[in-house]
Structure formats: C-alpha cells, structure tokens
C-alpha cells in the first residue's frame, strides 16, 4: 500500500490516518452542534442535509468556521512538516522561526495602512513571509539549512517581528485597532463562506504542489550528499518548498491572524501516531486539521457565550509542548 503522498506505508499508516480523520470529523460535528443553545445530533445532521429549521444557522454560520478550522489546520500542519523537513529539526517550524509573525506583518500593513482587498492582504502576507525566510536564511547562512543556528536566529526574528506587530496594532486608528485585536490573537470567530473561498482555493493548489514535491522532500532527508548523488537538485527543490510552505502559513495568517503551535506540533504528533519514517505530509495535514478543530471547539465553549480567539488556546497548549520539546532537544546535544 502506498499513500497518496508517495511515501510507501504499512497498515499502521492507514489505521493512524483513518483514526485522525474520524476523530477530526467527530470534533467538527460537535462544533456544528454548538451555538447559543446546543443543537441535538439529529437536528445538526438534518440541518447539514438541508432539512429542518436549523439549516440556515448550521450551513451559513457554523459550517464556514468549522471548515476553516479543518482546512487552515491542515495548511498549518503541511507548512510545519515542510520546514521541519527543510531544517531537519522538529523546532524548525514557521511559527517558531518567525515566518508566521512576518506574514502577519505583511497582512497588517496592507490592511491598516493601505486598506487592501482580501487578495491584496494575502499577497502582502506571502511576500512578507518569503522576505522573512530570506532574512533568517541569510543570517544563519554559515550553519546551513539544518542546525540549531537557524532555529535560534529564527526565534530572535520571531520576537522582534511579534513586537513590531503589536506596535502596528496599537498605532492603527481606533476603529482598525478594534478589528485587528482579535485578528492579531489568531481567530476564526465570525468566519463566513465569503472569507474562505480564496484561501481554500489557494491551499488546495499549494497542497497539490506539495504532494508532487513529497518524494523529493523525503529523498532530501537522507542528507545533502546522498540526496545530490541520487539526483536531487537541492537548490531549486528547497526554493520550491520554501515558497509552498510560506504560501500555506501566509494564506492562513492573512485571514485568521497568527495561529501558533499547530505547525510546530502537528507534524510530530502525526508521525508518531502513524509510525512513519521522517516527517511525512499527510499525517501532518490531518493532525493539523484535528488540532485546530479541537482548539476552536474549546475556544467557543470554554467561556460561553463569549468565544475566545482560537490562537489563545493553541498558544496555551502549544507553549507547554514547546517547553517539553526544547528540554528534549537540549538533552540530545
């Protein structure tokens, strides 16, 4: 059995992926039931199928947000897997090395200073994310792509850019500031179909690009020498991966703001559940979807009736994971 993404896998991969999908769909279904009052499973199912009085609420209000959680989570998981492969380091994900925060800077500048359209915001976000990738790589150049140097420099860039983002939000006009406060915490609240059409299409295209690059990405995991002597052109391959990976994280950030730690945690949890070699894409995407859907359910229900930004949940839970991971990585050395 071979997976769609070109990694040969055993039964454990299939069972693991099916398990993650089923759990994710369950979480999504429970989230669909949640509103000012809880709908019953029967009402929710009927609503989804277009019958009953709750159809409008469920398909127009709740479904867009739940879909956004699943698709954006998958995109973040993919982007995390891409950068963890590139850096050969479980800490090397876009939310840790400052790419996500920089993508948000781009989105903020285009929105607050230029009041751009959704497509312009997305473009600003991608451009700023790519610029950050270039800066981090240039500063870490001596140590190459893999190695702790790039991660440490990325963490510093992340801190500086996050501070800049806060300053931008504070400096913005009061009206804009009100809107950007929830956004800058990373939120899916109030998402409607209109908001997600463009990002969903972009993410689908990026995922196809990544699926086509997957085999080369795994070949490159054998180290620069063996990758090169087995025919990988490392330069163009890495450029493609950086563009696709930044594309994923920036597309999500442009709409939902910076949602941290999903990209960091999903690839590692996914590979453990599926018993995979290296850091494969499919388990990372599925786990990302599950993680963000579950976090959004918590964000909506913890402080009922006022929802929290989902970024607060992922930061709280993910922060604990990051500390554990740092301790493990330091112990290895």
């Amino acid at each position, binding site marked *: 059995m071979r997976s769609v993404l070109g990694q040969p896998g055993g039964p454990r991969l299939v069972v693991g992926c099916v398990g993650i999908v089923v759990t994710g769909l369950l979480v999504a279904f429970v989230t669909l039931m949640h509103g000012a009052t809880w709908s019953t499973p029967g009402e929710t199912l009927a609503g989804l199928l277009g019958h009953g009085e709750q159809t409008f609420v469920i398909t127009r209000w709740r479904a867009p947000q739940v879909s956004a959680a699943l698709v954006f989570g998958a995109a973040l998981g993919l982007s995390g897997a891409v950068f963890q492969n590139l850096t050969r380091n479980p800490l090397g994900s876009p939310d840790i090395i400052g790419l996500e925060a920089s993508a948000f800077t781009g989105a903020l500048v285009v929105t607050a200073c230029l009041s751009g359209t959704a497509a312009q915001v997305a473009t600003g976000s991608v451009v700023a994310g790519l610029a950050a990738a270039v800066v981090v790589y240039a500063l870490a150049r001596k140590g190459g792509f893999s190695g702790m140097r790039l991660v440490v420099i990325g963490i510093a860039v992340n801190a500086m850019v996050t501070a800049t983002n806060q300053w931008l939000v504070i400096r913005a006009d009061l009206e804009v500031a009100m809107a950007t406060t929830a956004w800058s915490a990373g939120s899916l609240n109030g998402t409607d179909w209109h908001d997600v059409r463009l990002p969903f299409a972009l993410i689908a295209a990026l995922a196809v690009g990544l699926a086509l690059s997957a085999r080369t990405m*795994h070949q490159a995991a054998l*180290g620069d020498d063996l990758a090169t002597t087995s025919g990988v052109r490392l330069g163009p391959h890495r450029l493609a991966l950086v563009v696709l990976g930044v594309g994923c994280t920036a597309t999500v950030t442009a709409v939902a703001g910076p949602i941290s730690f999903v990209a960091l945690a999903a690839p590692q949890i996914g590979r453990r559940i599926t018993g995979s*070699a290296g850091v494969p894409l499919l388990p990372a995407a599925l786990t990302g979807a599950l993680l963000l859907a579950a976090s959004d359910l918590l964000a909506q229900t913890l402080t009922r009736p006022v929802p929290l930004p989902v970024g607060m949940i992922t930061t709280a839970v993910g922060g604990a994971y990051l500390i554990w991971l740092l301790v493990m990585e330091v112990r290895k050395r």
Partner: protein
Amino acid sequence: MTGLVAHDLTLGYGERVVSTGLSLAVPPGRLTAVIGPNACGKSTLLRALVRLQEPRAGRVELDGVDLRRLRPREVARRIGFLPQRMVAPEGISVTHLVRRGRYPHRDWRLTWTDVDEAAVTRALLDTGVEDLASRRIEELSGGQAQRVWLAMVLAQETELLLLDEPTTFLDLAHQYDLLRLLARLRDAGRTVVVVLHDVNQAARFADHLVAMQAGRVVAAGAPAEVVTADLVEQVFGLACEVVPDPVAGSPMVVAH
C-alpha cells in the same frame, strides 16, 4: 576517453587547498582501490568525482562530457556513491531505506515497478541484510547499518560505484564478504572505486591501485607494481617488508 576521468583538479574547502593538479582516470570495468594516510584527500577526491565538490579548477568528465553539463538525475542513474558518514530519517525501516535508492529511476508518478522491486530484493540479498528487512535502522549495529546503506546504493543499479571506506564498521568476515561482493560486481561489468585503509586487502582485491599522499596521486597501477616497501615507507611513513600473500600471492605489507 571513456569512463570517469579527472583532469587537473584543484580541490579545497574555504581557505584550505587539499589538492592541486590532481588527475586520475578510473579504468572502466575494473575494481580500483584508493589508499593513503588520514587527511590526504581521498574523500575529497571521491566527492569531486560524484559532483559533491565543485573543483576550483579542472574538470571531471564522464565519457568525455563534463559532469556539470549532465543532468543530475542522468548522473545519478550512472554513478552511485556511498559517503563516509550517513544520517537516516528517524524511524525508517531497512526496506524503505533501500527503496530510496530507486529515486533516480522513478518519474513523478507513484508507480513502483517490478524492475524497482527486483533491484531492491537483489540489493538486500547481495549485502546479506534480507533478514533485517523490516527492522528500523536505529536498531541495527554499526556494521549492519553499513551494509544496509550499501544495499541502498546498490539498488540504484549504476554502472559506476564509488564507496568511501565501506569496510569501516565491519568485522573481519564481513569485510571479506564485502570485498568479494565488490569483486562480483566488477565481474558483472561494473566499475568500482573504493577507499580502503587496509593496504593488504586493497592489494589483494583491486585490479588498479591509487596511492595518495598530501592531496597528490603518488603511484597508480597494478598492485604488484604499486605496493613496494619504498612506497609504503614514503606514503605512510612505515618501515616494512613486502612479501607475497600466502593465499592470494598479492603483495602483503608486514611492518618492521
């Protein structure tokens, strides 16, 4: 000129120049052994021959064509290389690692052909690791892992095979297994270049011996001509006697 030929190479890292004016012709269909003391530039030469190291000057040609003008995948279908050090992706099994050797032969589709499967099976059998097929790399001993990596490079099925110290982690019996395997590959028509530290093994199994010192080739030719007491003294700084190997009759170095 057919086969792999290096012309007048200058090789180095940053400020450090390792070799200048290094030329070498790899005889096609033969087993070539490269010997020389630590840090004399053996690995650097091999890396230049498989385009891992860009020469500062000079060029490496494959059948008369500069390597830099060939497509990387094309080169990978013709030249296989086993580096001195390797890293395996975490959690990968032996079979899955060996399958990665098929990379240059596969296109963007996901099809895994019978040819691919046959190459992997043959590589596992040739290196004697078929019993380990479902184990994870990190659970293997150094010598077992070394043979698995060799299997991966064999699965690449290249006419040229360059190996950097493939016997390092192997016990004595497995060292000879590996050398015999290389001789069989040579008999099957492949060209093999191998860096060895044991001069006696090199002299016994190689058709062509290249002795290096301080980045230069100081002698190249049939083992019987190359391995002399003078040369060993000059290259390794070791006073010795050279006597015929009692089993193979090849030159054998015995230190004073």
